[in-house]
């Protein structure tokens, strides 16, 4: 099967690579660009562990064909806080006990950052709706929601 040339920007860095058209954005991020912060959970678009920001929109990267990302800008959890410091959402998750096994955490971080960018002062209901596509099998939702609300300055 002939390979395709894919040109995209990942975390601000232009990348060009040859891909198999069957690969998803998640495959390319993890296996070709070695950005393994983006996790593969269900691989069916349900769990949100593979959440990234694609051209400014939150998406599950397991549902996106990499070929469809030609010319796109991708932001992964590795690029959320470019200066090597923890992003306020990451710090709040640590401080509030919003991390258990950690598998869902990168997706939760990216989704929370996108949520707060779009809506800096969400209600608890809005946080819960915004994170509906991110499953935590440890079921630590309460502390995750509290961490996001803490960042928003609306601890309840």
């Amino acid at each position, binding site marked *: 099967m002939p390979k395709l040339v894919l040109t995209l920007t990942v975390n601000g860095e232009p990348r060009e690579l040859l891909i198999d058209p*069957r690969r998803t954005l998640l495959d390319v991020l993890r296996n070709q660009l070695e950005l393994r912060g983006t996790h593969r959970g269900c691989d069916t678009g349900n769990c949100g562990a593979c959440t990234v920001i*694609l051209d400014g929109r939150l998406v599950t990267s397991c549902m*996106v064909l990499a070929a469809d990302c030609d010319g796109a800008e991708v932001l992964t959890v590795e690029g959320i806080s470019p200066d090597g410091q923890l992003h306020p959402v990451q710090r709040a998750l640590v401080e509030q006990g919003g991390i258990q096994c950690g598998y869902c955490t990168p997706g939760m971080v990216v989704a929370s950052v996108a949520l707060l960018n779009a809506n800096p002062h969400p209600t608890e209901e809005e946080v819960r709706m915004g994170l509906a596509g991110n499953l935590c099998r440890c079921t630590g939702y309460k502390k995750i929601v509290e961490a996001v609300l803490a960042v928003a300055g609306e601890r309840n």
Partner: protein
Amino acid sequence: MKPFEYFAPKTLAEAIETLARYDGQARVLAGGTNLVLNMKEGNDSPRAVVNVKRIPELRGLEFNSHLTLGALTTAEEIRCSPLIRERFPALAHAASTMASVQIRNLATVGGNLCNAAPSADLAPILIAFDAVACIAGPGGERRVRLEAFFTGPGATVLSAGELLVAVEVPPWDGPVWYLKHAPRAWMDIAVVGVACALRMDGGVCVDARVVLGAVAPTPLRARRAESELVGGPLISERIDRAAKIAAEESKPIDDVRGSAWYRRQMVEVLTRRGLMQLITAQ
């Protein structure tokens, strides 16, 4: 996933030509939330994938005398559009009941309709608005009322080479709403969906639409229930009768999400609840 030829045409003509050439063996890629999953799971192995996202004619969201939704309009764009929230709040609401923000950012109105899942959330509400599907194909353009667009589970009137370009939604002068019944508040598929629309004149119902989702092979207009509503005041006895008739008109199946018996009960409940809600909103 089986190998396929990948195309990303930049014009409608090129897309139609490619789809026609593969004569049903090519799949349209828009949001990909159904197609990519089906291909991964081996349930669909097309010879070609035609990514239509680079085609400008399929984009756009505008309002003149009616709302025009380009087929690539995402569920999240519908949910968030100030225009839709103001003029078609029931449509924005229906979009908000779908999946997660991640999926709504990918899933398109065109995909939701062309996949033709009986449970598609945008279908009942768009049929309630009497939306029209604008289709382009090798033989030119045609328009089909959305009510007549679906032919069975996963099947539509689209023939090989045809593409859904846009959906036209006329305004409705009266209250409209969509009620979705699912075990979970988010990230769930409708067990039953009911869209209701009423037009009242001096306390008398002059027009009504009741459209059922997930309870028949296609989204279904409950025409006998609608007739029951039209021509009189909407007293609760009339609404009860219409809700019972809607349940009779539904043709649900037993599946993992609910039994046919349960779905029929819920059609009655949701139709009554939806109509009552519309009357109180008056």
